[in-house]
């Protein structure tokens, strides 16, 4: 089991200047990374003998109004330690490398984020309609300024 300091040290050695790690709730670690290195990062996390983080719980997207934050939750089934990886992409027409070839579980998560936020995952083999209705033609509904046909915004409380 690697603690926060060990994980931070390993990551900053391997990716100097591209990873800033910070404590979340111990023993959770959160690392903010450059979006260009995600595929190398997850390959490193999965293959490193001290980390062996090969289990992807989820990928989340968050609309931060000026950019979209993508959050990966990985853990190690063997060592029982976890890591949260945060990265940012452009809000409109954002691109990021797919990690589906390293962690196959990412396939559906990436499809979902592509559909709901419009983030393009470069290298994903099968980006197509996933959760929304088959005849959906109203764009990416999880963006904060999205408006739809029968979408009713919560009225402002006076």
């Amino acid at each position: 089991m690697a603690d926060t300091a060990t994980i931070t040290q390993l990551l900053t050695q391997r990716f100097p200047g591209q990873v800033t790690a910070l404590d979340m709730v111990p023993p959770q670690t959160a690392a903010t990374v450059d979006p260009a290195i995600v595929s190398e990062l997850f390959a490193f996390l999965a293959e490193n003998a001290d980390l062996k983080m090969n289990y992807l719980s989820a990928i989340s997207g968050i609309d931060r109004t000026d950019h979209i934050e993508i959050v990966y939750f990985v853990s190690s089934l063997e060592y029982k330690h976890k890591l949260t990886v945060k990265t940012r992409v452009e809000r409109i027409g954002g691109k990021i490398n797919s990690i589906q070839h390293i962690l196959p579980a990412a396939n559906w998560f990436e499809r979902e984020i592509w559909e709901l936020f419009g983030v393009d995952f470069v290298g994903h083999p099968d980006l197509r309609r996933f959760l929304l209705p088959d005849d959906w033609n109203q764009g990416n509904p999880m963006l904060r300024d999205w408006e739809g046909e029968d979408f009713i915004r919560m009225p402002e409380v006076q």
Partner: protein
Amino acid sequence: MGVISKLPVVLERMPMGTVVATSLEKVLNEGRASSLWYLLFGTACCAIEMMCTGASRYDFDRFGMFFRASPRQADLMFVAGTITHKMAPRVKLLYEQMAEPRYVIAMGGCACNGGPFHYDTYAVLKGVDKVIPVDVYLPGCPPRPESLLEACLKLQQKIKKQKLGEWSSDIRG
């Protein structure tokens, strides 16, 4: 429903026909109201409440109500739960597969008007009455079994007031 809905027209021309028609109406409506077989259709938490009402403590059986797993054998559809835009065509299909006369109880806030998902959602249909006609609206989130039984009694009252010619849903609207 062809023969039954033409009956009043035929009976009107006979002597004492209206008396026969009203008595027949009474008998048929009584039977109709006392054997509402409902479709097992639940999409969310309201379905749990519906199952609870169907089980022994609240006991739908004493109203002659039994669940049917096929729309072809059901008279009544509880729309129990949230209906999303993706589910809406399926709900409509199930309703259209039911034999007439057919009745719908919109159970819970979601089925009435979107309920807790009325605002700020891209996925939820705001009321099942946008897709199929509704007989009884039952508010609550979720409604207690007692409320559901009350809704069934209200529907029975409605059925008992029906005229012979009003059975088809294209007349009821």
